[in-house]
């Protein structure tokens, strides 16, 4: 069955450093991969989408890489800030479900001053 794995341990980093989150998947050939941010008590918010033929995508301080051979995506936040503290979810398209997404369980990021 399709499986998505994200670091289950919370990631604690110091302000100004680069945070790197990992998303690994098995039994998938996704057309694209997405990253979402979720704050406590709120719904996920879309951050970035990267397609299978793209290696890297950037948006301001965010960078996503996508290695379809390794079946892995890395999500980087450079010059991290305490406001970046949240849970980050990786998502892949779910086959045969109307473009629904299959989400990883998320990685909690805490950025301390």
């Amino acid at each position: 069955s399709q499986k998505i794995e994200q670091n289950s341990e919370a990631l604690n980093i110091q302000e100004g450093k680069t945070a790197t989150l990992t998303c690994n998947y098995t039994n998938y050939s996704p057309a694209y991969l997405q990253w979402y941010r979720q704050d406590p008590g709120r719904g996920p918010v879309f951050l970035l989408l990267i397609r299978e033929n793209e290696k890297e995508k950037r948006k301001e301080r965010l960078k996503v890489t996508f290695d379809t051979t390794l079946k892995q995506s890395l999500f980087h936040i450079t010059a991290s800030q305490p406001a970046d503290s949240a849970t980050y979810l990786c998502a892949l398209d779910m086959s045969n479900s109307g473009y629904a997404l299959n989400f990883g369980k998320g990685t909690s990021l805490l950025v301390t001053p």
Partner: protein
Amino acid sequence: DAGITQSPRHKVTETGTPVTLRCHQTENHRYMYWYRQDPGHGLRLIHYSYGVKDTDKGEVSDGYSVSRSKTEDFLLTLESATSSQTSVYFCAISDLPGGDASTDTQYFGPGTRLTVL
């Protein structure tokens, strides 16, 4: 948030009672989804809709039904609520994929916290 509202935002009910959650969108998006989110499981798809009166099951559909009589409204019904259905329920919408990130993403509502006693 994109124009998505969910009601109620919080509900406490008793085992065996019927419950209906409503999702309303003002974006005129074709696809609508219901997910539940539980600790240790992440977001899981319950049902989805690909148009008015067109719905299908997701991975955790047992005990749930849905209806979509208008583009803007997607209802999730628990016919007879059980304690295992205590969860946070999120509605999401998306448009037809068009090769643009803005159309291939999903937009989520604020969620409904449901407690079944």
